[in-house]
């Protein structure tokens, strides 16, 4: 670990922020708490994706595969076979890890370039959607309807929106912390060297397969777990939402706007864009359909033009007057 990791973790600031965030269910109205919960889901997903897409520079568009595995497989195991969703979550995470490792192996074996990797992973995501919507066990196109959440923690029930919010807050914080840890570890250095020049990295002894597989596996497992929690929150597990490649595009957008390859950027991107999209649609969609898309697009374009490196690196540079250190 880099020397600034443990002091950062011991600092009271992140813990105070986390404690403040934990009080939100007592302060926010139901609708805004819901939006915040969804935002945490996206913050966690964007942070998990950032390990592969940002730090390692592998633009994976297959992450809906892992969200879908976590959501659909764990739900199907519960609904169709009566398997406890905690166990289902572990099985789905293991399946996601295996799929992630397989994707990494294909990438390594065929030395795919960035574009080829993105296209191959997108093809995997499309195949996953087709497979799920045509597989009766996974709910088919109709999806799955989970039993009512009665707050039984042993049955993976969190007692409604408040419980899910706290779980997702912990999950989002964990994903950001994992990003920090990776960036501060030898794995982070290796991944950044692969991102910047794969051939040069290999020439100096960085193991491509090992590092890429490790990054993809960590990312896939985290993504799958988030998928399971998100499915439990929604109660209706919709394949067209949770296994859709569009979901990955949203995650990539949030991470890019927030700041690729940084620990806080992807989460910050989600905190800017996810509520903005929801609130704009809520307030504009009713009287002029489609206008929210326009305003949302305008904001995204504006942010990208004004802060091409992403919001977090730009803010850090301007507010703290501190030039960006690579990958921070």
């Amino acid at each position, binding site marked *: 670990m880099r020397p600034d990791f443990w002091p950062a973790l011991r600092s009271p600031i992140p813990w105070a922020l986390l404690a403040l965030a934990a009080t939100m269910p007592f302060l926010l109205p139901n609708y805004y708490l819901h939006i915040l919960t969804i935002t945490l889901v996206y913050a966690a997903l964007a942070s998990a994706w950032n390990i592969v897409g940002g730090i390692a520079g592998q633009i994976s568009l297959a992450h809906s595969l892992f969200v879908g595995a976590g959501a659909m497989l764990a739900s199907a195991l519960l609904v169709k076979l009566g398997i406890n969703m905690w166990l289902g979550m572990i099985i789905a995470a293991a399946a996601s890890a295996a799929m992630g490792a397989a994707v990494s192996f294909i990438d390594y074996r065929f030395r795919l370039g960035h574009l080829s990797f993105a296209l191959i992973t997108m093809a995997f995501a499309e195949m996953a959607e087709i497979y799920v919507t045509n597989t009766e066990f996974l709910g088919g196109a109709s*999806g799955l309807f989970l039993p009512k959440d009665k707050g039984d923690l042993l049955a993976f029930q969190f007692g409604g929106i408040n419980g899910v919010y706290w779980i997702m807050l912990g999950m989002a914080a964990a994903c950001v912390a994992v990003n920090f840890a990776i960036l501060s570890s030898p794995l982070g250095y290796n991944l950044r060297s692969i991102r910047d020049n794969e051939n040069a990295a290999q020439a100096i002894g960085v193991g491509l397969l090992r590092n890429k597989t490790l990054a993809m596996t960590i990312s896939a497992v985290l993504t799958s777990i988030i998928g399971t929690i998100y499915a439990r929150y929604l109660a209706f597990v*919709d394949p067209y939402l949770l296994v859709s490649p569009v979901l990955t595009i949203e995650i990539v957008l949030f991470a890019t706007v927030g700041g690729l390859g940084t620990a806080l950027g992807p989460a910050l991107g989600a905190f800017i864009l996810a509520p903005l999209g929801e609130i704009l649609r*809520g307030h504009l969609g009713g009287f002029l359909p489609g206008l929210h898309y326009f305003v949302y697009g305008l904001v995204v374009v504006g942010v990208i033009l004004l802060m091409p490196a992403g919001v977090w690196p730009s803010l850090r540079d301007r507010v703290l007057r501190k030039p960006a250190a690579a990958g921070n």
Partner: protein
Amino acid sequence: MINRRAFTAGASAAALGTVASPYVLRAGAADASIKVGVINSMSGSYAAYAQEGDPAFRYVIDKINKGGGIKSMGGAKIELVFADDTSQPARCATEVRRLVTEEKVDLLTGTMLSSQMLAISPVLDELQTPCLSVWAGGSRSSWLYTLGYDYDRGYAKTMADFATWLRDKNGFSIKTWSPCYSNYEAGQQVNKHLLKRMGDAGFKALEEAPLDTKAQDQTAAMIRLRSAKPDLALGLVTPRDGLLLHQARYNLNYHGSIFAGGTGGYSDLTLWRDLSPDIAKAVLTRNLFAMTGFSPSAKMASMQAIVTELRDQAKLQRIGQAAIQSAQAARVLQRAIEAAGSRDKKALLDGFKKVEIKFGDPDLYVAKPSGVKFADDRLLEDGSAFFVQWMEDKTQQVLYPEQFANAKPRPRA
């Protein structure tokens, strides 16, 4: 020249202005009103339903308000608060949350197809607010009623009964059939029930020809049908898939099977425009029967009256099934609120149980021989629909049920 600061200030002002405008617009609304949240899919893949239905719904609600509002509540007006779920189930659930907790609506309605119904059901249970869906094919919440066709007793039963009627009463030689349906949630569900009902009726099922909803061409499905050559191809087909299916049928010049199904993929008037009149004439008027919930030529006075009214008074351009279904939803809401006589949510929910619009009532717009009344499963007791055949002048003749019929089925050619 716009500098960065001016751009930021301008964009912020524009965003704030648009966000604030609904509150400004709503500031003048009357107090003596009942608030109804309307969640329509005004954008996205289901937008066709909402864009056609929304003007008809607004027209009927406006007419109710101008006609004295809700009598049992001293003439309270119905105030509508609109939302767009962009055709995405999870966003529909979010809008339910917003309308109930922020806008404080008393009840909800909207296009809400089956996937949206599934997504909002847990939220309705949590927030305990009554809701009327215009299209959902089922109800998973005790707080949700729907005017949609049940997958089994609405779609599958009507289709299977029609096939049996063709065979037994009209001498069509139909022994085999192939499921040909849009391969999405509703298509799969209807097909599941259809397989059982057609089997029970003595039809032999051949190879399936599911239609890939993302495909740009349905030639593969049509070749599969041509290869199996069933007497009948039957299933639920969306307008887009129907368009591609008929196009493929025309290209392959295949007329070896009877094509029947619903709803929009067979019965939508836009098929004539999108296929072009020559192709439409060649395929739609030959060996094809369409299931629909509405036909302007049906022998039903109250349905014809609302069509005339929507065309002449409301000046609506598109009056199809979605418009009539939405107009009916407005009347059902009115009856439910009248029956409740208060804004209490439990009373409003009970109001839906008391709704009964009998056949012959001028407020009955949909073709239901038993009228509009909800069963214990919160779907309509009468889930029946029409079967029609297209004429070369783009009009429809109603064939089934015979009560509404104005023609006999065209012989197989």
